[in-house]
């Protein structure tokens, strides 16, 4: 009772046989081996599973794999340049210490890219509000907010105390 799903993942066409109930994140993690996208809750609250579907940030735990038929998917594994150069948002997370344990990080980075694209010039308050659906337990969000601001609105980053 499986269906074949074909979609573009990080620029490559991929196919898999899935059950109707297979979640998109399960397809990515369990069948396509893309374990960079994480699952942190069951209630669409935490955002560890955020990826881009047709250039929009989406929680891949709240979408069926069959619903992604024909979609263009970008996961954390596909964000850096093919030569390994980090995406500016990834670089910003590193520069501003926007991650500790790294578990929420893929979803945070993918959401950060989405925020910076939709809301160039966003202020700190806006960035914080836009992170409503992404939980982090390690960083107090400070480095995450700074990292996203540094891409979306570099002038809004508060004076850096780390030198």
């Amino acid at each position: 009772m499986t269906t074949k799903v074909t979609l573009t993942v990080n620029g490559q066409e991929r196919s898999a046989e899935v059950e109707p109930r297979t979640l998109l994140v399960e397809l990515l993690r369990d069948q396509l081996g893309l374990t960079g996208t994480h699952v942190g809750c069951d209630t669409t609250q935490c955002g560890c599973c955020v990826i881009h579907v047709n250039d929009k940030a989406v929680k891949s735990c709240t979408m069926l794999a069959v619903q992604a038929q024909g979609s263009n998917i970008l996961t954390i594994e596909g964000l850096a340049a093919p030569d390994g150069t980090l995406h500016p948002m990834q670089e910003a997370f590193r520069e501003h210490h926007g991650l500790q344990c790294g578990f929420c990080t893929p979803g945070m980075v993918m959401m950060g890219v989405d925020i910076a694209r939709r809301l160039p010039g966003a202020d700190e308050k806006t960035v914080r509000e836009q992170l409503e659906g992404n939980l982090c337990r390690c960083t107090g969000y400070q480095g995450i907010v700074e990292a996203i601001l540094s891409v979306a609105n570099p002038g809004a980053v508060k004076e850096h105390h780390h030198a």
Partner: protein
Amino acid sequence: MGQFGIGQPLRRKEDPRLLQGRGQYTDDMNVEGQFWGAFLRSPHAHADILSVDLEAARAAPGVKAVYTSADLDADGVPDMPCEVELADLAGAPMWKPMRPILARNRVRFVGECVALVVAQTQAQAREAAELIEINWSPRPSVADAQEALKPGAPLLWPELGQNVPVHWQNKPSTEADAAMAGAAWRVDVNIVNNRLVPAPMEPKAALASWDEQEGKLTLWAPTQGGRKIQANLAKRYLRIAQDKMRVISLDVGGGFGMRGQTYPEYVALVWAAKQIGGAVKWRADRTETFFSDYHGRDQVNEAQMGLDEYGRIVALKIHTLVNLGAYMAENGPRMPIEGGGRIIPCCYHVPHFYFSVKPVFTNTVSTDTYRGAGRPEANFLMERLMDAAAEATGLTRDEVRRRNFITEFPYKTPMGYVIDSGDFARGMDDAMRMAEWDTFEERRAEAYSRGYLRGIGVAAFIEAAGGRAPTEDMRVRAELDGSVTIFSGSHSHGQGHDTVFSQLVNEFLGVEPASVRLVQGDTDVTPRGSIGTFGSRSSMMGGAGIKMSCEKLVAKGVKVAAHLMQSEPDAVTFSQGVFRAGASEMSFTQVAQAAWDATRIPEGMTPGLDEGHNFQREAENFPNGCHVCEVEIDPETGIAEIVRYVAVDDCGAVLNPLIVHGQVYGGVAQGLGQAMIENALYDAEGQFVSATYMDYGMPRAHRMPFIEVGFNTVACRTNPLGVKGAGEAGACGAPPAFIGALVDALRDYGVTHMDMPATPEKIWRAIYGAQFDTQESDGIYAEVT
């Protein structure tokens, strides 16, 4: 310090990997042909199991096996013990129950493991678990520690005859009573310190695999260093040689103290893997993680403090209840007595101190170590007392603290611990200056003119870092290719060891961080004496272990260098990565590479620079700090917004300020979470009603402030690096700073204390309490604008 050495804000080495989705968390691991496990958990807070029917579950599609306590008992798998030993003043030992891996005859909290189903897929395992038929006979339950003390309360352990397994006291209260009687001022506080869920972002998962050929079990699980879990699983539960059990925790999505324990699920899964001769994977969802991970805090504290006419403390009496949950977790009753006890009464000199602790059984998840583990509770209590003392004496909040700060070091606490160093007054001065405390009243007035209530709070705190175990095992090896490998007993689950330990190697050996590799989290390759990371210990224990290992490498390197440079060891010096003898010099790397060549080293020497060190600490270290929080309350909604937050910390010598600040930010967020929103809540039926992120309020970005940080560095005198821990400080400082600010904002409403979490509704009720109680709601609105 060099470009990459101690004190530099080096960006993290682990980040490029984690930022590209190349972490290796437990759920990323799979073994070919693995089965899936699912636990049937108790839906009841307290119930007898009259009968269990496994037939339908066993017959369900894909099911390989269904296990209950009967199977574990038949194989002689023992129950789980608590490791704490306590006694009352008469010397009678604490009564301790054992926890069955899978419930036997009775369940005592919602979520307790009852059965394990092993099936081909996760869905099959879960569906089969639902087919297990249990005939339950519910019993009355109690979730609240104070309720559990009342006569007639349901008993968790009828054989004990009460719910309190020991009444621990530091000494009789006689002296404190006498001193209290002579006090000029007496202040009382009663505090409920709310129950928290650690909630690391990575849900619990495990993969247990039996290798028939090797006769060996492997467990992948999110631990904080698996050596102790390995020893427990092998020796206690499976009765196999320790080396035949391997525990792997490569990347771990947050620890916070509750991932060092041997959880019953791990025991059941490794045992099941051995039974079926294969691999069993288990992936908990978030709610299951909430039921499985031990909880934190959940204390009730009643305290009385006496002060003399100058506002100096003369006596302090504390009565603490700690909610243990249904069973005693590994460290359960240790939280107030050793966790908080290491620092209590915190930053202050208290001549007469009485401390009473009653652990209490209830029908809830067990409590154990969670970020701070007893120290946040102790600091919160002391800081609420100090604010009350300021109120009573008329002294300012900083002045009453200043008059009581410990100022001479080393200082022996009433509990017998020795604080080596600190400058608490300077930390407070710095924090208040950064927060512009002096001009606060102007801001309060300005906010009031807009219809908002402003308050400011100050909290001094002290921490104890280093963990209970006094040793850690580290090994440093210079490789043939010029790189250096650290085999670490300490374990990073977010703390950035790869970066900081590389900085230490750079400092001591001159090798660039990029050429340093960290090996951790695999009991097959980490040092045998490894302990792991908890209690903010890695900088001191792991760091010192690296320093000592590096010193051994250099000592041996000197001999090799002397041999190669045709000099005498006494004539060889080593600094900044270079061995020198007269005009000759060789880099550490050159010497290290040569050292592997038996023909180039002194006769009789073992090739290679490869040294380990089991570091034994002299004492714990005592990080401390002062945090200032400023809040603005919207009186109509009760929402308190943090408008300013300053954290000045004494973390001793700072190895990497970027990472230390990161620890402070995270600790503060968890502390503010506790103060503002987090609450693990049980209802009257013992149901855990906040077991999802829909109900358990996690700190989110828009509720968290931008945190301004500063250091008040006083190097620790009792460890080689001069470091003090950083991980748990924020969680100690934030709750009293926030509640202090809130109470300050609400002082015109007669508010002297507010229990955590101070939710918007609680704040709103504090403001409109009088009108509200009359149920005449018209009046509520009249005063608002």
